[in-house]
């Protein structure tokens, strides 16, 4: 089956329709809402596969369908769809993972009173996410991008009666909006500099040679090429959405949302949108590489931020106790890896890792959801324990996800995609620091995932919740199994021995030889991470929920600092938050006392002058004037009878008089 680019819009339109149906369905119509959502997503998956078939016919081509949104001045604001292997592969991934998560959700959210609303929001999210993928216009991408943010806001705050969820939703929206302001400015600049926002437009698009040449040759503040400046501004948006340092603080809090939401939005798809954005505009991001003397290359910043984030997320994950927070910080860290790959020049490795990560992280979150569901909403790994017995399918699939994330060699997809990233980082000729950061993160990732599995699944049940845990229904376990299968198989699409994925995404891709030594190194590091994790947590299993963590016992200060996420939230509250409060206070005080005060002072002055003249008059005016004024008074009394004090009467007269006046004028005028 083929899907031509003209009909690409059907892919997001179907979930959007389902969202509309869900919004209008009453609370009792659970089957309708879920059916519409799952049906639309299933169809969208089929269409995405059709789009993939079309795209694979000529992987190097960018098929586009552009159209005018509205006329503006002598030109127009144009939007369009874009079909290439990147779009198609991402669409297939999002619709497939989304479909499985939707099915899982019918089980997980079964008893929620707002079930229909939940599926409405999920569909809205899917539509917006797919809109990002098929956009051939930065503006359309931005529109979808913000709608994804809205869906994320609604879903994080889905249990809005919980103050923590409501606060987390707002924090996510505001933090990502800070990044989005950069995105907006970058987009404005790009539009102003090139006169277009279409990516590909028969030679006139912003990612095509003539526009890129112009952007590289112009320079701006600090000698930066305009393309560098725009690229960095766009990266602000990507960093916000993809939870990159220093805007990563919202992502762990987003775990207040229902777990399928965490799996879909805050692990597999939306948070990867930033990575996708940079990959999409890669020609722009990398344009300044042509100038060797540039003071700064946009991609170097991306690499640095990615490396910091990869390390930071992994370090903090070591000391978290909430099963979802561990996975959230792991997501932060893995997104850092993807950015690192983009920064060091290998966008195909980034997308490879994006795809494998989507599957194994969705798997991990859904399996965690299965654990939480089974253990009566207990999320603290210290309270769990001993779950491998009762939750056999969940344990087996979680273990597969864990090994894929940790990068256990050869069989698991995460190994191959992470290998591709490390390989690219190793070959980066600017600095080796990102490479070393990546290596350290490999050890840490294997370590904290081993800790998580040992604490949650091994040993004995440490709370009534985990004692009474029993396996989730098939509607939840079957998606787990399917995702687990993908978490294994997907890696074989991009091994160095058969780099099909790399060649499909980028036909100019050529694999560099000599990865053997690197592979051995990373295998050793994974073994080191798992081994040390098992040595600390697996050999002597936790007996009581209240017992201190072995690391906490050794270095309490460090552990406490990590558990408190290195104090980023407090730092922001003390700086940005306080500045904001101060400015709001200042603006308000200015209004109340300075500006309004000035107005009142003026009015007071007027009154004072009036009083002075009155006093003067009264003292200086002689009796003759008094007599005259008496006369005047009595006349005024006669007239004032007309003043009834009846506002009806006044206004009626005013209106009537006005109408009459105008009528008279009109009649007089036409004479």
């Amino acid at each position, binding site marked *: 089956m083929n899907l031509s680019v003209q009909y690409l819009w059907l892919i997001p339109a179907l979930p959007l329709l389902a969202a509309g149906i869900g919004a209008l369905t009453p609370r009792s119509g659970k089957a309708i809402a879920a059916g519409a959502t799952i049906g639309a997503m299933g169809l969208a998956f089929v269409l995405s596969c059709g789009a993939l078939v079309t795209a694979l016919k000529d992987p190097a081509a960018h098929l586009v369908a552009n159209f005018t949104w509205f006329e*503006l001045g002598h030109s127009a604001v144009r939007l369009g769809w874009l079909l290439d292997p990147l779009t198609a592969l991402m669409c297939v991934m999002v619709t497939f993972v989304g479909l499985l998560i939707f099915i899982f959700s019918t089980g997980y959210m079964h008893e929620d009173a707002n079930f229909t609303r939940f599926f409405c929001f999920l569909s809205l999210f899917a539509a917006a996410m797919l809109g990002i993928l098929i956009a051939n216009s930065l503006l359309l991408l931005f529109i979808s991008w913000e709608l994804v943010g809205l869906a994320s806001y609604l879903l994080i705050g889905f249990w809005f009666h919980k103050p923590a969820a409501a606060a987390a939703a707002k924090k996510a929206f505001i933090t990502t909006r800070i990044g989005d302001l950069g995105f907006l400015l970058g987009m404005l600049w790009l539009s102003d500099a090139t006169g277009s926002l279409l990516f590909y437009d028969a030679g006139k698009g912003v990612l095509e040679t003539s526009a890129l040449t112009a952007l590289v040759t112009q320079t701006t503040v600090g000698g930066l090429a305009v393309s560098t400046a725009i690229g960095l501004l766009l990266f602000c948006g990507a960093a916000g959405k993809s939870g990159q340092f220093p805007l990563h603080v919202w992502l762990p809090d987003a775990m207040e949302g229902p777990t399928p939401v965490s799996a879909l939005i805050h692990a597999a798809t939306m948070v990867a949108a930033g990575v996708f954005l940079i990959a999409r505009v890669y020609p722009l991001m990398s344009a300044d590489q042509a100038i060797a003397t540039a003071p700064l290359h946009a991609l170097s910043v991306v690499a640095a931020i990615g490396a910091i984030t990869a390390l930071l997320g992994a370090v903090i994950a070591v000391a978290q106790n909430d099963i979802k927070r561990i996975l959230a910080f792991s997501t932060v860290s893995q997104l850092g890896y993807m950015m690192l790959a983009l920064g060091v020049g290998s966008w195909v490795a980034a997308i490879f890792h994006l795809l494998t990560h989507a599957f194994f992280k969705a798997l991990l979150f859904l399996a965690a959801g299965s654990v939480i569901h089974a253990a009566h909403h207990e999320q603290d790994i210290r309270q769990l324990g001993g779950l491998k017995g009762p939750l056999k399918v969940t344990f087996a699939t979680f273990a597969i996800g864990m090994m894929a994330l940790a990068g256990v060699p050869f069989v698991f997809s995460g190994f191959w995609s992470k290998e591709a990233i490390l390989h690219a980082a190793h070959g980066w000729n600017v600095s080796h620091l990102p490479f070393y950061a990546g290596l350290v993160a490999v050890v840490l990732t294997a370590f904290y995932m081993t800790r998580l599995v040992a604490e949650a699944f091994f040993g004995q049940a440490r709370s009534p919740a985990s004692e009474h845990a029993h396996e989730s229904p098939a509607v939840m376990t079957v998606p787990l199994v399917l995702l687990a299968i993908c978490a294994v198989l997907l890696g074989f699409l991009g091994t160095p021995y058969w780099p099909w994925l790399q060649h499909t995404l980028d036909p100019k891709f050529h694999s560099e030889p000599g990865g053997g030594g690197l592979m051995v190194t990373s295998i050793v590091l994974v073994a080191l991470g798992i081994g040390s994790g098992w040595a600390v947590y697996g050999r002597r299993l936790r007996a009581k929920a209240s017992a201190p963590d072995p690391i906490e016992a050794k270095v309490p200060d460090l552990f406490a600092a990590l558990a408190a996420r290195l104090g980023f939230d407090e730092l922001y509250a003390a700086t940005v938050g306080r500045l*904001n409060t101060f400015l*709001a206070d200042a603006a308000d005080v200015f209004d109340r006392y300075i500006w309004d005060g000035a107005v009142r002072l003026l009015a007071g002055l007027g009154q004072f002058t009036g009083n002075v003249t009155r006093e003067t008059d009264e003292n200086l005016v002689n009796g003759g004037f008094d007599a005259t004024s008496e006369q005047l008074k009595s006349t005024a009394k006669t007239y004032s009878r007309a003043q009834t004090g009846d506002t009806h009467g006044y206004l009626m007269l005013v209106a009537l008089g006005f109408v009459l006046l105008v009528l008279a004028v009109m009649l007089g005028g036409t004479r």
Partner: protein
Amino acid sequence: MSTLPLLSLVVFTPFAGAAGLGLLRGASPAASRALALIFSLSTLALSLVLLGGFDPARTAPQFVERHAWIAALNVNYSLGLDGLSLLLVLLTGIVTPVALLASAKAERDSRLFGALFLMLQGAALGVFLALDFFPWFLFWELSLVPAFFLIKLWGGQGATRAAYQFVIYTIGGSAFMLAGFAALFVATGTMDFNTLAQLAADGSLAQKLAAFGGGNWTKVIFLGVLIGLAVKVPLWPFHTWLPPAYAEAPTGASMFLTGVMSKMGVYGFLRILWPIFPGPLHDASCWLLALALGGVVLGAWSAMRQTDLKRMVAYSSINHLSYCLLALFAVSYATGRAGPSSEAAAAALSGTLLQMFNHGLSAAALFACVGMLEARTGGKRGLHEFGGVRTAAPIFAGLCGVAMFSSLGLPGLNGFVGEFLIFRGVFGLNAWAAAIACLGLLATALFLLTFWQRVFHGPRAGATTGVFADVQPGEYLTLVPLVALMLVLGVAPHLLTRLINPLVTAWAGHLTLP
């Protein structure tokens, strides 16, 4: 082309309705409300007729009516309609009935309320259609009378003070404008906007004024007119009358004040100040840009500190209208400079016009929502007096949510298109101004989401704990049209842009200084 004086009909039908209501002393409240609603709907009906006959490609005023009024003074009764006027007539036609409906329940003395409202409507329409300063100024001042009584008689506790401040401040500003136009008239012998604009464009206005009163005379007159308009919009820092006036007014009046009346000032900037004083406006544009940025950024920050929801929405109006002025000042700033393209100017001006329309919808809807909160809780509207409204009234929360996200410029809803075009234009004309204005976008999101979180989220608390009804049938009539338009115009902005694009293109194409 029909020979009916369509524009006069548009303006005077509401006045006729007001007079009718005044005469029908025995009318029941229900009948008065129905009558007021029917007359207020006349604008919408007539504007659909206008839409049918309107040719967007012609940029000159259409449906022109012109009669000599006071021949000795060369005063003409002259009405005309171009894309800008049409947009605002449409907006008035939509907002007025909806605002009347929002006030339908609780107002005492419906007859007087309806009559005042119709007068207000007619005066606003007169402002949007008059082409001669004399009738324009009459309508401009006339609008204050019903607005004053609506606030004073139906307002909250501080209404009297707020109404006085509002009217005195605005009249004070207008006095400067009147004086300015008197001087213009003496120097040129005309008060016709188009004639004055032509004189300004070929440079003879400045010469005549200089001959009349000296070299700085143009600047003095410009300043007078500027003050009059700046108070009306309001331009920061002439805005302190607005929060109390909007907050103390009854719901329907707040909706009209923010939806329609706040556009009168921006309209004045576009129709009068910019065409007649292009030179002085350009000279002052640096300072004015700074003031507009003050409104965008500090207005939003002030909103964050408000605990009265109506004052918060009022401040958000200051912020939103400042975007309009920011765009206009940026265009004026760039006029005559090398570099900026007419494309950027077209974007900025289109954005201004769209923003006027969109803000009318979203701010009116937000005031309606606060009014509904008040109606359910005996007048409570404090930020901290609610909690969990979304649990109690999910449909209300949904509709209010759309209005809120429209106000914070979420793509897919109407507010985004105008704001995007303004930012697109301003960036091309003065990039730093656009960058600073971004702070306003952030602060807007912050205070609106705080509003949302405190009032709608969390457990039911405060005034929400008791009985709290969801949207009532009559209230749907207020909210649904506004929300539906937000959704439609967010996806299909060409419904509006096609009406104004030729006009805006022409404006952007003639950016020269005399």
